């Protein structure tokens, strides 16, 4: 896809946890970036995948669909998906679409890492 307006950096928080720092827009064009970042995190042996939405500029309904697809992949690998840094608006979108029932949402990185234990 040529018009992806997103970048994703993958960093290790600890041996079992990777954080995907999202910067930009999550829409249909973000699929390759998101899945590539997830593959990179998984190949490093991470069992916990944290999505950092602090740098999120915008997400449309196709973006929510991408997150569902990612969630299904994560669940099939018996990994865990968590999110932090969502604005109030996008927390409401997660509740509206009921993504919050499957993806743990935390205010910041330290709270998400604490939840993993």
């Amino acid at each position, binding site marked *: *896809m*040529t*018009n992806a*307006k997103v970048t994703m950096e993958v960093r290790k928080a600890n041996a079992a946890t990777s954080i995907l720092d999202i910067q930009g827009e999550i*829409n249909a*064009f973000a699929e390759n970036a998101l899945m590539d970042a997830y593959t990179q995190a998984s190949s490093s042996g991470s069992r916990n995948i944290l999505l950092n939405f602090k740098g999120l*500029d*915008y997400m*449309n*309904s*196709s973006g929510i*669909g991408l997150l*569902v*697809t990612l*969630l*299904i992949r994560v669940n*099939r690998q018996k990994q865990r998906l968590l999110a932090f840094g969502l604005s109030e*608006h996008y927390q*409401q*979108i997660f*509740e*509206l*679409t*009921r*993504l919050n*029932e*499957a993806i743990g949402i935390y205010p910041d990185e330290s709270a998400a890492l604490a939840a993993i234990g």
Partner: protein
Amino acid sequence: MTVNSPNPESTESRDNAWAPPTSKMKVSDVPVGAMNLNVEGRQLVSPIQGFGQCWQKTFKVRLSGVTGSPAEVMQVWKENFHKFQPRENHFYPTMAGIKPGEVLLIEAKVPPLPGMPSFLPVATGVLVLYADDTSFTVMTPEGHPESGWNTFSVYEEDGGLVAQTQSLCRPTDPLFEIFNRFLGSSAQQDQVWTHVLSSLAEHYGVKGQVTLTKVLVDPKVQWKQAKNIWKNAGIRTVFYLLGAPVRWVRGSSKR
């Protein structure tokens, strides 16, 4: 391949593209003739809350020779969305049109077995979850045959316009899964969106070839969601219609 971003508006206006926060469906104006069944008070369901295999289906048609912007074509699509449906899939338009938060009531008829005529009624509806200038998404309530959403969009590709319908759904309960997997419901649903895209193309005088790409996102069923069958819109619609004579007698005796 060149693909233009479908969202040229500002971030502020795009944030208004989402439906307001709500935990349950609320029908404000019931169109004349609509049953308004299996919608009011129902929770929305994403693919996470569904039962069956999760499929992503992408239907596309090239609108060759159609001039105008994706937003202009989408405006026409929104205004005629109910008219572009096949006869057995009746959508009731609302006064407000396709706007975030609006509820579209549906009365469909499905065949009980492959090859048989469509006569089993299903009354349900969808919420307009998201709508911007070049796309909109509808999300299903509990009891609907599918749990998830359909996104309708128009965009530019290789110098021409493309209209697309993409669904990300699971059959909601075990009965709908059986119908979907073995009794032809999946193919019937494919025909619905093919019909809608063909109708849009015909509106512009284009004889377009609708293409379909299917991806099995999750081959497993979610047994913990088998309980969804209690709100099955098909079963409840049949019982509602069977109870019509009783309601008529009760109503007459009260007058």
